[in-house]
């Protein structure tokens, strides 16, 4: 906690409407670098929307209006004239259900590398191996690198998505309930990985299970009906919540 307290992402009065329904209202949050920040709250409270606004993925859907500032590393990513793919490259996304690209296991990891770096075949293979080792998948798949990724188990697919994300060397990893589709063992593997990865990356984890947040989070943001109710370091948040709604949520009285 007393690592560097630099702020990686900061939003200033962020408002999002979908088809004119307000989904996020005046969001002001700070997300510290190289820590694991959990965004918690009941389903439908705008967690995923908030997450996807960080790498400007929201705007590919219809009927979305975004107002306010999102500052990443001192740059407001909402300002015009920026190269959007560059913003997105900084942030890997892990979705609820793993979506391996329709290619082989190797090509899945190599996809981002091929786009962003001119590497020769050997360098590429090495980089892919490194990423797969990082997520503990290498030993499981090294003999079938050119099989379709869809033949892996769901848990393996999710780890492949993680490997794919870290291959492009992002600064932030956005996780949208990455364990909700997995069995308990696979979920545990992912959790451990996230804890390992927060040394090198800023990890933002959207989750609706409180226990998971308690286990892994350094910093917590509590969203309720599109508003930030409380945010702060995890220990303080869980042991000594200030807001009555937070207390109620932690006690299981509202969901």
């Amino acid at each position: 906690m007393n690592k560097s307290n630099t702020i990686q992402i900061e939003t200033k009065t962020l408002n999002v409407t979908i088809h004119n329904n307000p989904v996020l209202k005046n969001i002001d949050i700070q997300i510290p670098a190289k820590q694991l920040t959990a965004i918690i709250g009941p389903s439908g409270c705008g967690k995923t929307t908030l997450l996807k606004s960080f790498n400007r993925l929201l705007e590919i859907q219809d009927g979305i209006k975004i107002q306010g500032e999102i500052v990443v590393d001192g740059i407001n990513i909402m300002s015009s004239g920026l190269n959007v793919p560059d913003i997105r490259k900084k942030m890997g996304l892990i979705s609820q259900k793993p979506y391996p690209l329709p290619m082989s296991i190797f090509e899945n990891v190599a996809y981002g590398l091929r786009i962003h770096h001119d590497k020769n075949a050997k360098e590429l293979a090495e980089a892919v191996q490194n990423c797969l080792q990082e997520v503990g998948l290498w030993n499981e798949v090294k003999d079938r690198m050119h099989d379709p990724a869809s033949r892996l188990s769901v848990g393996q697919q999710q780890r492949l998505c993680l490997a794919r994300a870290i291959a492009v060397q992002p600064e932030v990893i956005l996780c949208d309930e990455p364990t909700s589709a997995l069995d308990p063992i696979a979920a545990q593997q992912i959790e451990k990985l996230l804890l390992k990865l927060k040394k090198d990356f800023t990890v933002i984890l959207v989750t609706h299970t409180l226990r998971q947040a308690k286990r892994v989070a350094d910093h917590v943001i509590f969203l309720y009906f599109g508003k930030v109710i409380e945010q702060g370091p995890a220990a303080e948040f869980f042991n000594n919540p200030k807001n009555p709604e937070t207390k109620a949520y932690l006690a299981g009285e509202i969901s």
Partner: protein
Amino acid sequence: MPPRTIRGMLKNKLVLVGILSLFLSFIFLFLFSNFFLFALFLIIFIILLVYNFIKVSRKLYDALGTRLMLLATVSVIFLFFLLLLILINGSINILSDQSLSDLIFSSTWKPFSGKFGLFAVIVDTLIVTAISMVIAVPISLLSAIYIAEYAPKKFRNIVRPFIDVLAGVPSVVFGLCALLVFVPLVRDDIAPFFGSNISSGFSLFTASLILSIMVFPIIISLCLESFNSVPIALKEASLSLGATKWETVKKVIFRAAGPGVLAAIFLGFGRAFGETIAVSMVIGNQELIPKSLFGPGQTLASLIASNYTEVSSIPILASALIFVALILFVVVLIFNLLGYFVLQRASKRWKY
């Protein structure tokens, strides 16, 4: 459940109609001695009786319904083979009269002197189909991508129904337009531009042009369907790795929607290959090996349309045309099977 009590049964309109028709049938028999009307109403009564009986007896209703469905299903398979059988049977006449190689590799088509060489027609068909696909496929795919991935929602909402309507416009209407617009255009502008001054406008190129326009809506609407069925999370996965939109389209969406796109192209090919009326209106209907794209020609399908009126005067011509239809059927069959196996392989490997 059907009503059980008498009152309940009387409430049922069908039962009322049944009783009424029985009553009427007796009136007509005894009061007017009109046997025809008696029979008519009696038949109505019997039908309603049987219908009600079936309704009441669930088991029978079930069994009968299931049997009828089975019958329809079997009959369509039967139809498939009957079609093939009748076409083969009809072709036997011409095949016993002339050898297969004579038919396919000779290029003189003169029904009145008994010559049925199809070589020129086959060459023309290949040329016309190939050109129309070369024009239609890239343009349709690019348009479909734009409409599905790039276009603003308003534009999409206008264009999609428009494309769907045009996919249903009869080919004869397309043919008429080609006659009005493209024939003069090819004759006066396009052909002279490419240095052939004697074109009448009725040409292979004109036919290819109208075919490609006819194929646009078919390929586009099918492609749109398969682009739209690509999960949005897959796009997000690619975009969040820092890929541009086009890179995502090229490497991810095309792959994920690949089977559907391929099916669309195959269907477009089938349409271009077998189109009869629009082609026969503008191709010039001459069974020649073309010297230029701007000269007249004849495709397999249009050959049938422009020769069928003579079948009563030259009996063997009928057999020759049936043989041509058999070729059309078999080519479509082969292409469909080919497409099916390609799709099977592709979707097994790259499902998402």
